[in-house]
């Protein structure tokens, strides 16, 4: 695309479902996947006379989300009603926060081509989810499932600081990772617990004012976000270049066609008639409770990555990969601690472990159930002390995935233990020395090129069970005598 001199400006609105057991304003289960309308009551069905009562755990999680993204948490915030008619919005309004949200002015640091970039967080506000309209289930009818009605969300709104699809992707991955670390949400786009709307505009490089933006909805994956941003920005630039105008409106990502199209209804034209929710008193937070929440936050991905690099001597890439999720980082740390070898643990986890997870379609939790870090550490430890070779270690790893038995037992059963016994090794060295006198003589004369081939011959004689480092040492010592 030859849009040199044109810049992309993106702000993202991310809706995240808070990981509570019950809904935001009633005692119904917030779990995903129940039979339609099973998780409903007078409150979330908006029966006449029902009233909302705020879920304290949802507030705790919203505070954690805010602190984890370095926001200022406000001691007083106000719920507001966002009024609009829709069949899956039973009250005819959504309880949200408007001009006094729970948190503002945070930041997330993303990596852009190896350098840090700060993306500002404008605000985080609490709100409830609507239900779901099902249009394709019954011919001629729309069905309504209100299981989601009243499920607690936070909306995290970024500043328009993002300048490319790749930055948008990096922002979303980092945000997701932070929220997972903080235990705020499951962040599953498949189950709808993380949803993204993207605001995009285009401007000439150097312009400071923002041009008209459009909002893209229906984005069902991070890669859809990146593709849609690219397409929509391209449309903007092409339009501006041909002296057209961009209308402020809502666009929809079409996953099947891989296109962005106009939404039928003009969502931007709604007047939501926000006003303070009279059924809920202002949310007043104790400064001490906020401080306690801050103290209870776990180490977040950026801090952990820095510590991995510093304490374990890991490279930037490994540290990044290993801190992608809290569970993976925990797994690595356990393997490093139990094996006493962080370098090898890092190699194993970023290599074989992640490859296995990918091949078998697992996540780290189910992998850890299959092969706890302590068992992986056993293999690493045996390799480190020379009792198995690295190729034998991979065989043991594969065996341990299939069944019980720790590394030493598996190695013994499969005959994979390396022979480190000096007497046995010396005997094989002597035999090879005798069988290949010419090569032996040249090595003895100082031709160290022959060390490799002779070691290979000893390994062959041992059937692969000799410890190659020791063989190498013995041959060198023999040549020196």
């Amino acid at each position, binding site marked *: 695309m030859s849009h040199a001199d044109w810049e992309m400006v993106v702000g993202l609105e991310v809706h995240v479902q808070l990981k509570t057991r019950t809904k935001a304003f009633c005692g119904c289960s917030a779990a995903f996947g129940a039979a339609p309308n099973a998780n409903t009551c007078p409150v979330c069905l908006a029966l006449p*006379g029902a009233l909302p009562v705020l879920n304290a755990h949802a507030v705790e999680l919203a505070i954690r989300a805010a602190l984890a993204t370095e926001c200022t948490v406000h001691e007083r915030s106000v719920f507001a009603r966002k009024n609009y*008619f829709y069949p899956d919005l039973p009250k005819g*309004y959504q309880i949200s926060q408007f001009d006094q949200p729970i948190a503002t002015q945070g930041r997330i640091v993303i990596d852009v081509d190896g350098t840090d970039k700060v993306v500002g967080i404008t605000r985080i506000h609490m709100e409830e989810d609507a239900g779901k309209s099902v249009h394709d289930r019954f011919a001629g009818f729309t069905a309504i499932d209100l299981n989601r009605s009243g499920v607690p969300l936070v909306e995290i709104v970024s500043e328009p600081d993002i300048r490319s699809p790749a930055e948008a992707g990096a922002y979303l991955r980092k945000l997701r990772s932070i929220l997972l670390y903080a235990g705020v949400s499951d962040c599953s786009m498949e189950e709808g617990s993380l949803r993204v709307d993207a605001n995009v505009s285009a401007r000439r490089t150097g312009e400071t004012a923002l041009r008209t933006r459009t909002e893209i909805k229906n984005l069902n994956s991070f890669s859809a976000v990146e593709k849609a941003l690219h397409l929509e920005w391209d449309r903007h630039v092409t339009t501006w270049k041909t002296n057209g105008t961009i209308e402020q409106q809502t666009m929809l990502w079409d996953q099947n066609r891989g296109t962005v199209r106009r939404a039928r209804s003009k969502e931007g034209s709604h007047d939501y008639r926000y006003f303070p929710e009279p059924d809920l008193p202002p949310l007043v937070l104790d400064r001490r409770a906020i401080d306690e929440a801050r103290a209870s936050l776990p180490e977040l991905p950026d801090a952990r990555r820095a510590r991995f690099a510093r304490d374990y001597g890991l490279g930037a890439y490994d540290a990044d990969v290993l801190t992608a999720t809290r569970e993976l980082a925990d797994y690595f740390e356990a393997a490093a601690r139990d094996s006493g070898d962080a370098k090898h643990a890092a190699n194993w986890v970023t290599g074989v472990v992640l490859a296995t997870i990918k091949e078998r379609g697992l996540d780290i939790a189910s992998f850890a159930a299959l092969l706890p870090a302590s068992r992986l550490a056993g293999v690493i430890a045996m390799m480190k002390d020379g009792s198995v070779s690295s190729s034998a270690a991979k065989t043991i790893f594969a065996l341990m995935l299939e069944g019980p038995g720790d590394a030493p037992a598996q190695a013994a059963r499969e005959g994979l233990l390396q022979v480190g016994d000096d007497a046995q090794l010396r005997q094989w060295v002597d035999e090879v020395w005798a069988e290949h006198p010419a090569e032996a003589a040249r090595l003895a004369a100082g031709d160290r090129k022959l060390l490799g081939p002779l070691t290979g011959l000893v390994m062959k004689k041992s059937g692969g069970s000799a410890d190659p480092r020791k063989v190498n040492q013995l041959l060198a010592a023999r040549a020196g005598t």
Partner: protein
Amino acid sequence: MSRTARVEASFARAAEVKAGADGLNCIISADREQSLADAAAVQGGALAGVPVVIKDNLATLTLPTTCGSRVLAGYVSPYEATAVRRLRAAGAVVVGKSNMDEFAMGSSTENSAYGPARNPLDPTRVPGGSSGGSAAAVAAGIAPIALGSETGGSVRQPAAFCGIVGVKPTYGRVSRFGLVAYASSLDCVAPFGRTVDDAALALEVISGHDANDATCAVRDAPVLRAGAGRLDGVVIGVPREYFPPTLDAAIRQRCDAALDALRARGAAVREVSLPHTDLAIPVYYIIAPAECSSNLARFDGVRYGMRVEGDGLQAMYEATRSQGFGAEVTRRILLGTYVLSAGYYDAYYGKAQEVRALIARDFTRVFADGVHALFTPTTPTTAFALGSISDPYEMYLSDIFTVTANLAGIPAMSLPIGRVGGLPVGGQLMAPHFGEAAMFRVAYALEDELGAEAHQ
């Protein structure tokens, strides 16, 4: 009298006074067999076997909860309002749901989809509203206690018109759970009683914290049944704004007599000023419709109540809501939608909230200045004739002395202080937030001192 006999007597009285659509039209649903079964099952309690009437905007389990609206015709709630549950837990037996202005919007009980209710003291006149059916039922002797609801005077004004006692508690004193919302920041469940003591008993029973209402105060129910005593050391404030030169002379005279009665009991009477009083009606008619426009959005034909099919979703909404709601409800929804609209919010809703705070501060100042309770007339007139007020704004003015307490959130009550032209006149007492106990102390004394004069 046995518990079932009391309930039998209530139904007999209802038949005698023609409580149904062919007469007073104060009871719009009842189930005699169910009520008798309920009475037989009563275990005991402060209200064991006492018949009670419930306004039709409070959720009850077996009788419909229609709010006097077509849009909820036949709707039966699957859960029970907290106030009703507490009455029943104390042994009370629900003998009927009462007529009301649709969704509590009105001052005469003429705005009901089920036809107007009538005043038992003069059936050509209104019982007041919006809780007119409950007031009429108590005045007619069908039940000694009834529940109504208040948003701008909907219990005190009909209590005054029907010659009984009506109490609007402090906002947050009684749970609103199960009260179908009109204007949430103003709505209160409010009891009627034949006497001050009946009203006190009912309020004691329904008060107290409820985890289902986030605006309900975390306070225990108050002790109100003090009985009549002296009022030495009690200072009664008389706000001059409630006694304008245009006030009906006969009503003023009854008020003066009531103040004399209070003095006779040892109270000191002092004139005070609540300077923002004249702004209360305009402020009320911005805030209440604004909240109403949002609260009534749920009546959309999708999940329950009436649905009028149309060509597509929008047409279904429009047909259901335009046929389901009456004229006054429609007027307030439109007004409320307007005042919350972008570009008008600050000028109307925002400004109204500021003035509301000023009205509340008027009261705070007076009460901080040594006044224990205020005394005013409840209404500027006695019960007017059915159909005599057609101008909505003129109707709104019948709440001119009562809306202030709702805007300020303070407790207030009306009790009979005599009659003018054979029609009851109500005297209003107002007290500081959660000052019901002091307010009732004054009410008991006034009722006792006036004696039979209160009904003459």
